């Protein structure tokens, strides 16, 4: 039973990490153009002006 004492906090922490990752993605504008993102994945050469996450 004592295992729960650390398993529950660890589970919550992992979940919170996921939440934080989502918040970061949202803030850096990765959800702004869901249609365009599908095409950008197919581009060969990186866009020199790709400014995701810089602003």
């Amino acid at each position, binding site marked *: *039973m004592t295992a*729960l004492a650390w398993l*529950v906090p660890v*589970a*919550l922490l992992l*979940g*919170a990490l*996921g*939440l934080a990752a*989502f*918040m970061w993605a*949202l803030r850096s504008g990765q*959800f*702004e*153009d*869901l*249609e*365009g993102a*599908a*095409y*950008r994945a*197919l*581009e060969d050469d990186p*866009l020199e*002006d790709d*400014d995701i996450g810089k602003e």
Partner: protein
Amino acid sequence: MTAHTAADRLTQTAKGVSPAGAAATLTLAIENMHCGGCLRSVERAALKVPGVRTARASLAAKRVSMVYDPDRAGAGDVIDALQAAGFAAAAIEAGKQSRDDARQNYLLRRVAVAGFAAMNIMLISIAVWSGEASDMDPALASAFRWVSALIALPTVAYAGQPFFSSALGALKGRRLNMDVPISLAILLATGMSLYQTLRGGQQVYFDAAVSLLFFLLVGRFLDETLRVRARGEAQNLLSLQSGMATVIEPGGAQLQVPAHALRPGDRLLVSTGERIGADGVVLEGTGQVDQSLITGETAPLTVSSGQEVYAGSLNLTRPLRIEVRAADSATLLAEISRLMLAAEQGKARYRRLADRAAAIYAPAVHGLGLATFLGWLLVGASWQTAVTYAIAVLIITCPCALALAVPAVQIAAASRLFRRRIIVKAADGIERIAETDMVVFDKTGTLTVGRPQLIEDERISDDALTAAAGLACASKHPYARAIVAAAEQRLGRAVPASGPEEVPGCGLKRTLKQGEERIGSAEWCGVESGGEESEVWYRRDSQAPVRFRFDDRVRSDAGDVVAALRSRGYRLALLSGDRIAVVERIAREVGIETWRAELKPTDKIAWLDQRAAEGRKVLMIGDGLNDAPALAAAHASMSPASAADISQRAADFIFQGEKLAPIVDAISTAKQARSMALQNFVVALVYNVICVPLAMAGMVTPLIAAIAMSTSSILVTANAARLAGRGSP
């Protein structure tokens, strides 16, 4: 006059914030960007403009945002570069866009937090529920409830904000909306659960409260996404349409400026075939303008210096110089705006279906809660027990399904309309259009295409048509274009004649080896006028003159749409600013018996008010500036995408394309949406009829509450999804 030069203004209007010397941002609407290739081409073209630092296009929004150096580049340069790459572009006011984005992200963050919390609390709750059936240590169960409380309390405080603030706003205005019972249920459930946790009791509803919050936020977010997308599309359309105007600076230099950035006192050069960007006075030149978008009158109007022209008029015959009038003076636009404002105030009283349901629902719920409390006291229970059961009633009746019922259906309906190129502009438009029982059309540009067409006549010989079309090729006048189009249709082609000369307001002529040939007004060709305005004559030397007559073509499916509407029991009417004879003929052609002609905007409103007083709910369909107040006054309204921008702003729906069929589409989708919303209300009602007696009897456990709430929410959402899932008509 202002001290700004036009160059200043160009960057000022186009960018968001710009302290001197800093980089400015610019957002452009792009008309024809459809795939990943277009996306790259747009970004490349924008980046090639010197001074543009970054460019990022969005396929979903059909826009490109860039950061640029205002000293080195301007909006005009980028628009030109994009035009050269094959994309029509126009500047967008940046303010609204960022506000919409912020609101969307505000909701999405709360959805994420509520989703995270709901999952974790549910995980713990399931352990506790199964523990009750087996042999879980009560101390451990209590510890688990504490963990739930630690997750739930900050979540409710953070993710519940949209509901709390909306409920507070409603209460301050002494109204009840759906958010009042929602907020109450969430707060009570959380409060009681906390109390029970402190006491070591078992009536803990954190899971129900937080998953309720999650479901509701998802509904709210989808609703907001829909609105933002509709607003964005409408704004793109408007920006692309209003386009640029050519300003002549005091020094004589010409400059392209977005039409919405024009200021009173600006001098404009309007070339032939261009729309006039602002209300103004003609300074120089005599020419004809097409004011059909403003007055509904199809026949071109001749204007000369000193006369007023209105924004949206099409310049037909020759370049005009125009001085922009003060916006606050008694211009037509100002008058129309005043009428619209008055009409909209009348409509603001409309209450949405969900709010009307809430007005019945909320008192009923609170009454039941009170009855439970008093009932248990009467039969001798302790007050704590009575309070616990009363709160269970409030939680179980929390309008989760009810609050999802309407938005879920409306999102499904609106996305179906999106796919059929109908933009839903007003969030409650779908509800209002479903209630209408009468359809009122405008004529020019709505029932008709808004462009004149040659009336075929056997007296017009092939030779005469060929010769007339040859001359007409040199003119941009709509009648000339109609002759060319008719020649192309009848003879397969039109060959431009050499050396024609255009005399504004009269017509064209050219000198031949023997004599000359002329095309234009009756006077120009030296013949007695037939008394009609919409005619053009062609004469070669002393040969008999040939008369060409024109009329505005009715949209190809207008008759079918009118018949379809009538068969569904709609009353129909036609209101127009055009002349009686023309309106009567069109009305007969499409099969509308009730029609009124030569109406001013105020007359249209008065007519609609009479119908409203008779209890009719009118769907108004119009495109002109003169229709805008009527569009705002009607119960629901639609505009074609070719409409004047003020009309598009006023309309609830905008439809694209050459056909009228979207009207029938919109009405039938809205009616289906309404019957589905009612079905959803029934689902919610059935759920309540089953669960409320259980709750009143004190038999609801946290497990039952959680299951009942989730199933009713999922049922309602799944029912709404049926609407979106239905294929093409």
